[in-house]
């Protein structure tokens, strides 16, 4: 009985707070953020947080969205879809957020997207790579402002075709939606540019020991190893590859998030020679980006990576959409977001109306001497790929 009473009182407290505040013009616009604050992807969540907070500070300093300040509420996703769904439900139902973002794990984005559909809210991911989010598993309530696996792979494959044609490639991805999607996307690109695929293995997220996966790599003797592990997983994979003397004769390519400003320090020399296709680099030499990098560094004491930049950019997309719609109403904002073109640190992005995927310029970035260097640039329309979403 006491447990029921306590639940009741919790309920009372929650609802009383909501009932007591009538909607005012200066009411904040609430944006929920479900992002990993602990675990393998904590570093990614940290970039997401810095990017969103910087954007919110700037928007609020300039008068907010339609005169209403932006308020962010954070919850730890733990890179786990079941946790993400519960935290998102709390933000939607208890905190009554108007919009939600931050999910990193592609499985989390898909699961939270389904929840958003049922709750009649909109979400956007600024991180998840899995193509399915804006393809066969697309949702009218889900937007993606970052580059998906296909876009990254198209960029990386253009480099491969030029530098290592006919390369023999082995793939090692994290064992979940994102890993399988990135490997499949790059594999089809390798086949397209004339390379050959030797085999693929998938290691669970948060693996501590990758050495048992090395046997198949050794057996097939690849010239190129493609990997899409991320966060602290990359640190362990690269140091173990180096420890076992495998980095000497293999070129390592990877997904956008594999090596970033967040983990390159911990990887150290093992990161040298790594190449990736990515939608953002702190090296982009436009005045907008230089201003952004400076502001980001002042706030976070580190360089932004793709996650920080894409999350920062999202707030401005939402701002533009709400102002165009004249309200935070789900249907109106959705209409405003579809086809929206807005300015971000990395240049203009456009949200494709057909599948809610952002089209953006892609870059090939190579690590040399612990520094990221932009090697080449691929125009947005060449990288985005076909719209295969049939749900709306």
């Amino acid at each position, binding site marked *: 009985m006491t447990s029921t009473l306590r639940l009741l009182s919790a309920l009372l407290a929650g609802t009383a707070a909501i009932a007591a505040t009538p909607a005012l013009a200066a009411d904040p616009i609430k944006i929920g953020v479900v992002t990993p604050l602990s675990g393998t992807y904590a570093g990614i969540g940290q970039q997401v947080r810095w990017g969103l907070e910087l954007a919110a500070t700037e928007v609020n300093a300039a008068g907010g969205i339609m005169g209403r300040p932006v308020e962010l509420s954070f919850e730890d996703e733990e890179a786990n879809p079941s946790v993400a769904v519960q935290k998102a439900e709390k933000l939607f139902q208890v905190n009554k957020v108007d919009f939600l973002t931050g999910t990193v794990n592609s499985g989390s984005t898909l699961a939270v997207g389904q929840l958003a559909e049922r709750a009649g809210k909109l979400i956007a991911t600024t991180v998840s790579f899995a193509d399915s989010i804006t393809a066969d598993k697309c949702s009218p309530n889900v937007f993606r402002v970052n580059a998906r696996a296909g876009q990254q792979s198209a960029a990386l494959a253009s480099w491969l075709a030029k530098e290592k044609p006919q390369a023999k490639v082995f793939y090692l991805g994290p064992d979940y939606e994102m890993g399988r999607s990135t490997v499949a996307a790059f594999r089809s690109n390798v086949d397209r540019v004339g390379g050959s695929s030797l085999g693929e293995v998938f290691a*669970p997220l948060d693996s*501590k020991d990758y050495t048992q996966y090395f046997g198949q790599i050794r057996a097939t003797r690849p010239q190129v190893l493609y990997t899409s592990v991320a966060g602290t997983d990359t640190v362990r994979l690269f140091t173990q590859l180096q420890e076992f003397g495998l980095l000497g004769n293999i070129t390592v390519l990877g997904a956008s998030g594999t090596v970033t400003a967040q983990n390159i320090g911990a990887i150290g020399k093992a990161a040298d020679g790594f190449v990736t296709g990515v939608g953002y680099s702190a090296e982009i030499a436009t005045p907008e980006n230089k201003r952004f990098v400076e502001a980001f560094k002042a706030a976070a004491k580190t360089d932004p990576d793709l996650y920080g930049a894409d999350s920062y950019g999202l707030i401005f997309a939402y701002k533009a959409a709400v102002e165009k719609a004249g309200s935070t109403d789900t249907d109106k904002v959705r209409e405003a977001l579809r086809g929206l073109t807005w300015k971000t640190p990395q240049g203009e992005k456009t949200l494709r109306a057909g599948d809610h995927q952002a089209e953006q310029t892609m870059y090939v970035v190579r690590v040399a001497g612990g520094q990221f260097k932009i090697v080449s640039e691929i125009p947005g329309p060449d990288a985005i790929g076909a719209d295969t979403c049939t749900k709306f």
Partner: protein
Amino acid sequence: MAVLDYLQFVLAPQMVTGLALGVAVVLVALGLTIIFGLLDVINMSHGEFYALGAFVALALGSIGLPFWLLLILVPLALLPIGYMVERGLIQRVFHGGDRHVTTLLLTFGLGLVIEDVLKLAFGPNPHRPETPISGGVELLGVFVPNYRLFLIIAGAVVIAAVAAVVYRTRLGAMVRAAAYDRHMAASLGVPVKQVYAGAFAFGVALAGLAGVLLAPIYSVFPTMGRDFILLAFTVVIVGGMGSIAGAVVAGLFLTQVQAIASLYISPVWTDPIVFGIMVVMLMVRPQGLFGRLGHA
């Protein structure tokens, strides 16, 4: 030529990697099996003591103590903790109705608390201590990282030392006597209570030592005990609950199965295989490959 090349470059490195993992698992399983063999207690918090050892090493290492000293200091630090847990907690329910179940539950609860305390004290994120010895050597054309080689040798020494203590010393004889028949041992003047608490503390200290040795390879984080302990439990069950020889044989065998199978199938599928072996073993021979401590 191709065969030799396959052996040197593919099979042998995989087996060496498996051996390093095997020795690591045996180290953890050793404490588990001694505690079961003597006290009839399935120590569900064993994985958390392994994590505790790694964190104590991390904390002491951060104030500048060298790794080599930690190999001795950390197990010593865990001894009194293990002793107090046995006297203060396990003994409270030891003589109650169903000893197996209540001690299993109690240590399960203790594991949750230790894990959360570690999270509270050190945060949820992994820490990666520097590898004490870097680089690698070539043995018969097989490249082996130095630290893994050290782990294999050090682990073998520890395992041999534990076996020597249990089977060759007067202390070990008392432990085995107490395991075989506690009343008989007591009447012969063996301080059974101290032997019980001491054996538990010894098992916990071994888990802590494993934590120190494995931290540079597997990183240090509060839930580090969870995955590893599942494999250690499997090893103890297959080898025979309470058997030291069984833990060594089963530990090395199961990790070689994993390592070699990983060449041909996706390594993630080796988990169900190993757990499947455990279930089959429990069905056909629940006492495991070898008899238990004091009985063989």
